[in-house]
């Protein structure tokens, strides 16, 4: 049977416990808008003294309301969205280069070139029509060069982006490793380390947007973090992700220890996050588009050159090319220029089919204009081949945009699930506040009652 003093201690414990509960509810309310904050729950339990029940209460600890499975799904979803959004953004850049719908692209400049051949056939000895051919040819060469340069620049930028992302990943990995250490120390000292875990979780969420991340709890407060299928953080140690170029010019990812040893290549294992999106955009889309552009320009340039060389200029010259085309298709779009054979010399434009029909013969100008309907690249006419490139780029972007939409919807759903488990509900917290406030008041009343009883007792005994 308990004494009044024991009841007083019980009231004291109750005041402390309810105060703790109020404190936790206040903390939750304070952080209702803090990104990555996981709501806390005060864990109260009855205080036992040996085998005896004292009827008192004590704070058993603090619980972060998390669901490890939902957190893993969120990391996966963030990785997928990170890859798709980066991929989509880069494809938008490629698409802009081939958006001929406003009539200012490469296709339009090729149309103008064929139109200039037509106009030349109407007035083969007209200097203005001849100059117009050279202008249109130069414009086509410059436009193809500009697009090829833009694609090459995009490829270079993507390499820098990948290297910058790797630095960011390494920094976050080091920070997670440091937090692992602090959490382990805090837990060893009996602290809950909830704030540190929130910080680590925030870092993980950021990391997942850059590379596919998997985590394993080491049971001692630390997290093993795998990035791109390789261990990135293990306890208090982190490793370095290295981005460089493979022999074929594609991106190569390696994971290395701090000791400077050779890294392990993980290129094929990286499947999510910004890094995966960068690789896909750079080594598949930009590369393939540039290759197709090169083949197109190489074929068109050579076909026009062959026909032009068959004709005769006003000066009687023949065998002259309209374009300087590279020897192989690789790099042809960047290298294409107006040929020195004709640059600045409209008379060298070969409109006539024979020397005898100079200066008014239009046979070769007609043949050049007729190339418009002649298959010249992969069995397709120039317009068809260019349309194929435009359609291909659009198809790719549309597919990735669709994937991004789907992945974003999945991410939103998973985040809603996480928020449902870990987010702060002000309604709940207001109820908690009221609950702990009433309990605190009641504990105070117990204390007052004990105090009055003791007072009565002292007064009666003292008479």
């Amino acid at each position, binding site marked *: 049977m308990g004494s009044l003093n024991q009841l007083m201690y019980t009231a004291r414990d109750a005041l402390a416990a309810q105060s703790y509960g109020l404190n936790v509810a206040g903390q939750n309310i304070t952080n*209702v*808008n803090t990104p990555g904050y996981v709501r806390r729950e005060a864990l109260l339990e009855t205080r036992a003294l040996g085998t005896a029940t004292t009827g008192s209460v004590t704070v058993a600890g603090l619980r972060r309301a998390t669901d490890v499975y939902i957190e893993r799904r969120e990391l996966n979803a963030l990785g997928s969205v990170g890859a798709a959004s980066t991929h989509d953004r880069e*494809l938008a850049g490629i*698409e802009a280069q081939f*958006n*001929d*719908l406003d*009539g200012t692209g490469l*296709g*339009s400049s090729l*149309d*103008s070139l*064929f*139109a200039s051949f*037509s*106009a030349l*056939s*109407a007035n*083969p*000895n*007209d200097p203005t029509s001849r100059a117009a051919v050279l202008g249109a040819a130069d414009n086509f060469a410059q436009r193809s060069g500009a697009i090829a340069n833009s694609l090459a620049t995009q490829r270079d930028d993507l390499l820098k982006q990948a290297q910058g992302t790797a630095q960011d990943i390494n920094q976050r990995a080091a920070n997670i490793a440091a937090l692992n250490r602090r959490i382990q120390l805090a837990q060893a000292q009996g602290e809950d380390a909830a704030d540190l875990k929130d910080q680590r979780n925030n870092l993980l969420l950021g990391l997942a947007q850059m590379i596919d991340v998997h985590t394993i709890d080491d049971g001692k407060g630390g997290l093993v973090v795998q990035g791109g299928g390789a261990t990135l953080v293990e306890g208090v140690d982190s490793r370095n992700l290295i981005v460089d170029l493979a022999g074929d010019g594609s991106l190569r990812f390696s994971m290395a220890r701090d000791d400077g040893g050779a890294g392990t290549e993980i290129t094929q294992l990286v499947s999510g996050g910004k890094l995966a999106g960068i690789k896909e955009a750079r080594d598949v889309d930009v590369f393939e588009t540039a290759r197709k552009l090169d083949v197109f320009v190489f074929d068109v340039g050579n076909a026009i050159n062959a026909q032009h060389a068959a004709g005769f200029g006003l000066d009687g010259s023949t065998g002259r090319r309209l374009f300087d085309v590279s020897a192989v298709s690789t790099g042809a779009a960047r290298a294409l220029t107006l040929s020195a054979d004709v640059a600045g010399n409209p008379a060298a434009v070969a409109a*006539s089919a024979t020397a*005898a*029909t*100079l*200066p*008014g*013969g*239009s046979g070769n100008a*007609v043949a050049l*204009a*007729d190339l*418009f309907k002649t298959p010249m690249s992969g069995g397709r006419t*120039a*317009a*068809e081949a*260019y*349309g194929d490139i*435009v*359609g*291909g*780029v*659009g*198809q790719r*972007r*549309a597919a990735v*945009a669709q994937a991004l939409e789907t992945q974003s919807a999945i991410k*939103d759903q998973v985040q*809603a699930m996480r*928020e*449902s*488990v870990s*987010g*702060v*509900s*002000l*309604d*709940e917290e*207001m109820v908690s506040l*009221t609950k702990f406030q009433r309990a605190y008041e009641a504990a105070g009343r117990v204390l007052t009652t004990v105090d009055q009883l003791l007072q009565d007792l002292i007064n009666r005994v003292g008479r």
Partner: protein
Amino acid sequence: MRITEGMRYSEVLRNLSNITSQHAEASRQASTGIRVGKPSDDPVAAAELARLRASSSQTSAHLSTINNVRGDAELTEATLSDASDVFVRLKELALQAANGGLTADERTTINVEVTGLKDALLQLGNARGTRGYLFSGSQVATSAFDPAGVFQGDDEAHVVPIGNSAPTAVSTSGAESFVVAGGRNVFADIDSLSAALATNDETGIRAALDSVDASHKQLVNARARAGLVLSKLDASQSVLDTVDTEQQRRAQQAGAADPYESYSRVTVLGQSLERAIAVSRQLLDIGGTNRF
């Protein structure tokens, strides 16, 4: 399921963002009339539009070529018409000169006009268009006939691409119109008449009458051929105009927004947006006022 403040705000933000984005896209389509603004909007339509744009550009180039060569073709036809008129007058003069009652002086006077008509015919034969001399074939920088009426050009036709068929010849041969390639050398026939007039050779004048007739027919035929070129140009232009209209219709079909659909979509999404804002306000109010 627990509903938290974060879920409530995220839901509001996502809904508003989604509807605003759709409304902006619908407004763009309604205001520009363009459904396919970039290849990814509809890749198949974008590829089709790229090909149609190229075909349309080619059609425009052909129409422009027709306009460019039409002037010379019309001038050729008019010149040959004038040339045949010259022979109408020459025949009148030859008939007049063949009258046995005319004196040598009167025939000399007629010959003055005949000589003048030959000069006029030479000038017509050396007419220039935008490309150069009309009847010189490919030798557009050289006059078709020297002062004696000797042909200096060639028989190369001026061909241009004006459709999907084979290139079309748009010039009329000077050789076939004025000299023996067509059967008669019209200048030589005038010279024969002129010589008979100068020598008061009544028999020669009568003999020249047939030659003048034959030359006249040759020029009339040449004019008919020039007219045929114009007809071809007209026919090609008509076909190309139809093709152009069809290409524009197909481009419209492939890439343009349906105005009724886009306007109604803007209206519907506008109403949705208003409702979403109203609902959002209520959602936020639930969490925002006088708890407990």
